Structures are given as C-alpha cells and as structure tokens.
C-alpha cells in the first residue's frame, strides 16, 4: 500500500463523474474539459481523457458531433445522451452520499486526521532518508 496509489484510485473514482458534469453544462471539446478541470485544480493528462471519453461514448453515455473549425479539420464536440444524463443523476446521488459520509467522518474526529497526516509525514521522511 502506498499513498500515491490510493490517491490515484480515489481520483480515478471521481474522474468520470467530473467529466460528465463538465459535459453536462454544454457541448464540450476535450481540451476545454481539460482546461475547466485545471481551473478547478484537478489535473488530468489529456492522454487519459481521450480513452475515457471513448469508453463513455461506447457505453452510450456520450455522443459527439463534428464541428467545423476555422483552423484545420473539424473537431469532435461531446454531449450527454439521455442515458448519460440518467447515469449522471445516479452518480450525483452516490457522490453526495459519499461526500456527506466522508465529511461527517472526517469532521467528527479531527485529531485522527492530524495523526494520520503526521504518520504520513513520518513515512515521507523515512523515504527521503
């Protein structure tokens, strides 16, 4: 068990949810999605975004249309399908429940957080040593 692993697992879990929520706001071009996520301080590699989009598209949660661009060939703009919207709804409720649960758990016992963070620091120190 290492911390990066767990962290990336956690990030990965919410990634699809995040992408869907960006697209839900309106048709989106992948680099726009990246930008928006960067603004929200959620860094993601473009190379991971494309496969995810394709998978979601293959699962019929997303669809896309070609939009002419003034520089070069047409671009793919992604939008949510009905199925995708329903899927998003479900994810949203799950997320809210989860967020609530985490909040109450973490908020309830602040000292625990401190101890874990200190042990993490210690671990990091050991590693650097």
């Amino acid at each position, binding site marked *: 068990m290492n911390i990066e692993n767990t962290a990336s697992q956690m990030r990965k879990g919410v990634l699809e949810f995040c992408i869907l929520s960006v697209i839900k706001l309106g048709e989106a071009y992948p680099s726009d999605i990246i930008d928006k996520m960067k603004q929200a301080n959620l860094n*993601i590699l473009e*190379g991971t975004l494309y496969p995810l989009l*394709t*998978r979601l598209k293959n699962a019929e949660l997303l669809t896309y249309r070609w939009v002419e661009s003034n520089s070069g060939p047409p671009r793919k703009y992604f939008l949510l399908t009905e199925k995708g919207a329903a899927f998003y709804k479900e994810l949203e409720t799950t997320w809210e429940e989860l967020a609530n649960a985490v909040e109450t758990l973490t908020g309830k016992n602040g000292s625990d957080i401190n101890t874990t963070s200190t042990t993490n620091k210690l671990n990091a120190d050991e590693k650097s040593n």
Partner: protein
Amino acid sequence: MKKVININFQGRVVPIEETAFELLKQYTDSLRVYFANEDGRDEIINDIESRIGELFQERITKGSTCITDDDVNAIINNMGRPKDFADADSDQPQDSHTTQNAQASNEYGQGFNTNKRLYRDANNKFIGGVCSGIAAYFNIEPIIVRLVFIFSGVGFLAYILLWAFVPSSDNVQNGVRKRLYRNPDEKMIAGVCSGIASYFNINVWIPRILFLIPFITFLFRWGHFGPLYFPNFLSFSFSPGALIIYIILWLVIPEAHSTAEKLEMKGEKVDLNSIKNSVVEEMRDVQQRMSKMGKEARDIAQQKSKTMSAEMGYAVKKTGRSFGDIIVFLVKAFGYFIIGCVLLFLIGALLFVAVVSIGFFPLKGYILNDGWQSAYAWGTLLFFIGVPVVGIITFIIRRIAKVKSNNNLMRYTFLALWVLGIFCFVSLIYSVGSDFKSTNTINEQNISLSNPAVKKLEVSTFGSNRFYSRNNFFHMEPFANFFDEDSVHIDNVQIRMIKSLNDSFSVILVKMCNGRNRRFADTLADKMVFNISQVDSVLYVDRGITITRQDKFRNQKVIVTIAVPVGKIINVNKRFRDMRWEHFNGPWNDDNWDWNSDWDRDEVKGWDRHYGEDLIMKADGLYTLDGHRADTDWNNDNNKDWDDDTNQPKSDTTQGYRYEETQKSIDSLKTIQEKQIQKMKDSLKKAKDQIDKKLENLEEKNAAKAAVYQWPGNQTDFIVNI
C-alpha cells in the same frame, strides 16, 4: 543543423524536424501498443493524434518555422505517456500481492474487483513460492503444504507444473496479473495455443508446432502412405495424445473475453518507449489485418456448422463450448490436418525431386546436348524446383516470424520464374524425348570365335568377377557404379542362349540404341564399342557399354546371343545376374525393334536362375549337370516342328517338365510297374505250384505202377535193372 520533413498529420501539413518526427512516431506507436486491447483503440489514437495536430498548428501559427524536439516533448508531457496512464488509469488493483489483501477487499465488498486467486507467493517463497501460495489461498501454514508436497509421491511433478502455471505475485505487483486464457483474437481452432503463447510470452507457432509434432512425425513414416494402409494411417496421424490434451485444455482454460482478461492473459508491464516495442507493434498490426481476413472465412464456417447442428435438432446455445463448437473444432481440425498433410507432402515431394535432380546433374553431360537442352535443364532445376522450394521455405519462416510483406512485385516475380521453370521443364522433356524417338536398324554381327568346338564354354567379363555390394545409407546412382571423369558405363547387356544347329559354339552380337532419327541412331550404334573375345574355353565379354560425353546415353544396349550345340556345356558367370537395365522411355518413343523371328525359335528361356552353374544342352533344352531342366518354357509353340524332328513322344514332354511333376509321374509309373511285376510273379508262382503238384501226382502214379510190377523183388535190384 537538422533536416526538416513535411508530414501529413491528421489532415494538416506539418513541417517537422526529422528527430522530432521519430519521437512523435515512437510516441504514437507506444500508444498503439498500450491501447492494443482497448475496444475503441483506433478512435482513441485518432483523437489524441488530432489533438496533437491541433497543438502543432498552434505552434506554427505562433510563428515557429517547424516542430522541434522540444515541442514534441512538451506536447507528449502534456498528453502523458502510457506509463503515466497506467498509474492513473489501470483497471487493476495496484496492490494485491497477497491473497489476504484480496480477501480483505472482498470483505469490504467494493473497491477491488479481485476474487480470491491462487498465486505463487514471491515474498515467502522457498523454491518457487508454490507452497506458500497454496497456504495463503487456504489460509493455512505453509509448512503443512510443504510437508504434504515432500511426502506425496507426485509432489515433485505437481510442484513443477504449479510453478509453471500459477502466476507469481511478483507479476501482480507490476500492475497486471498473468493468467492462462484462451486467446480468441489469435485463435486457429479454439485459441489454446495462442493463449499458451501469450502466457509464456512466446511466439504462437511454438506451442502450435509442439501440438503438431505427433502429426508431423507420421508424415515421415512413409509406410503409412498407400491405399492399403489407410486405416492405419488414420489411427497414427490423429495421434490421440495431442488431441486429447488439446481438448482438455480447451475445456479447462477460460476464454479471455473482456479487455481486463486479455490484459491478464498477456500480463505485460507496459513500458513502451523503446524501438523494440514499436517493431513488435508493427508485426501485431499486420497480424491483426490477417486475422481480420481469416475472420470472415471463419465466421462462414461457424455459421455453416451452427446451422447444421441446429438442423440436427440440438439447441445450440452460445455457451462457447457447445456441440456446435465441437463440430466446428472437428471440421477445422480435420481441414487443417488435411491442408497440413498436403502441404508437407508437397514440400517433401519437391525436396525429393530437387535432391534427385541434383544427383542427376553431374550426369547431365551424358544425356543432354550442350546448348539449349543444357539451358533447359538448368532452368528446370533453378526455377521449376528451386523457386517453389525457396518460396515455401520463406513462407514458413515468415509465418513463424510473423512477417508479411505485401510485396506483389516479389510474388509476381516468383510466379513468373516458376512459369519459366515449367516452360523449361516441358521443353526439356520434349527435346530429350525427341532425342530418343527413333531406333537404329538391327544388325546381327557374327563374332568369330577362336575355338568354337570347345566342350565347355564359360562366359565371363573382363576384369574381376567378384561382386562387391556397397550398402550405402543413401544410395542414389542413376547409372551403374562405374563412373569416372569422362565416361559412364551402363549395364545394358543381355545374354541370350539358343541351341546351335551344328556342333560348335557361335556368338551373335546385336547393338541397339535410340536417336533423333534412324540415321543418328545407326551412326551411334556403329560407334558403340563392345568387345567379345575367346581365350581357351572362356568367352570374355565387356561388363558394360561405355558412354562418353560426346556420344550421349541413348538407351544403348547389347544383346549377346550364344548358340550352344547339343551335348556341350555352358556356364554364364554370376556377374551377369546383377545387371541393371538402364532405360529411358521418352514420351514419344516408338519402340519398333526389328525382331528376327528366327531367334525366338530356338531361344532357351528362363535359365536365369542358373547363373554360375554348368548347364548342358540336350536335344530338348538346357539341363543342369544333375539332370534337372534349367529352362522353363522350352516346349512352347515355336518349337513344335523341332519336337517332331527329335521324335520325342509328345505325351512325354507335355506331361510337365518341372522337376516335381516329372518325379511324381515317374514315381507313380514305377509303383504301377512294380505292382504289375508283383502280380506277374504271383501268377507265375501259382502256375509253378500247380505244375509241381501235377508232377508229384504223376510221379506217385509211376511209382505205384513200378510197385505193382516189381513187388516181389528188391527195390535196389529194380533200380539197377533200369
């Protein structure tokens, strides 16, 4: 200073430094490998590429003259390398190296998709970690499992097998587990071999060939060929062992359906920034194209067999191991088997022809004319035989190395060369055949003997009469063993025997040969040298006919006819028994020898069992010295008039001339005769007895008379008186 090239990248013309282009290519290739098992692979890569193209465009509109290494590296860092994706994107649990962990995650019920699985425990291993893995799986102490393995008889073998087949937890730590699956993407029959290949990370042809070895070995048991051996041939070829193992593996190993399973099957740690992988990918690409091509055919076959089995009343469900699949399997297996056999047989036959023709080649000078014929022969060897051999070998090597070139030019060149080869072959056959077309005029040549009246004539050859047989493993001499730099000897010598009409031996020599036309054949026959000479009682005859490079081989043969007078002895040396008859029958030969019918009349046939024995000519044929007949059909129709001349009773000779029959008939005649003699003796004895009796009676009567006459006197007196 760097070279700049223009590339068409996703619909944009991009000027790019050559080194930068290499980087870019490497990157896209690595993506291709990474997403190889992804469903929407091409789409993903397309999207990424078009995004990269867009970024390129941006840089150029900003004023860059071309894309540099730095640009490409920046973009790649932005997009992320496959290694980075693996960290962020892996479906696999990153850390499940002990089954306890997996179990724990199962208890929580979510987050990890692992079931409890058997792994070799690399952390607590003693040898291969098999025992500790099993112990972890069953949640028992490893020492117990170890003891069980040590004290059970099959422990060692089982350990080795488990070692080989159970994945190590090391692999798992690397991110992807490795499991044995059947590979549906590369399947030939059921994907067993390709699955094994993926598991051991070897070429798919290695397990295939291992499975085929029992099939192949039968091909080298040539005895199985031939119509009579068909059942035998079947039982051996379908070597049940390999087949059964295959079927068992088929049933036991699951098929890799999902992407995750396919990843598990390969178990690759994806580290893709090397050129090596790009090469591998290229090959894989080609392979996929080929499998696509094959898929259509396969689908049709599957459809057919499915409907067939459906018609037979079996509900075929798509369970993957249904009855229909078994039929598909059997049909496919049989089809591949037949194709394989035919191919291997063709290769074998071609190689055989190649070897034989190469063996013949040193002798080409004795058969073929220089010039065109020679050229045809070379053409035949190189193109008709050589090209397919080379072609098939390259095909096999390609297939094994999975390299395929779509080089049509080469294919057509091969085809053209082979057609040329066929032309050469046909021309060669035609031209050689026409050289053998005509026969020469038959000329009987009387050989004068120095001492024709000798009592016994021995026919022998010049030189040693011992016969040495060479028992080579591979014996391939088209002509007889005599072979030196510029001449060849052939054995075409035939010894015939006839009954001489007078009381001296005589020898007639006939030379025969073929040629383009009669004139050619006649001159060639004149050139033939064949020595016959008599020294005392030995007739020396050449062992063979010499053929030089100038006077080619044209079916030269020599018939030596020896006329043996009645009452004289002939002995033909054993060496003539081992004569071989070298003969070429061209396709347009008209074998029109002018047989002299006189010869046949008195010919002694069938004496060939008696080489090296003294044979005596009698009025009715050849006999061995102990009185058995040495010929067979002496008494055929040709000799009827002769029979009359010798006043031989016909019934006798027609009674059968084989030793046993003659003996039998003689025996039966003897017994009959003996019986008759006995009868006669008996009757004579009887007659004698009767006469004796009568005589006695008469004597008694006389005595009585005498007694009456001389009763009173002395008997002695009476006698004296008489």
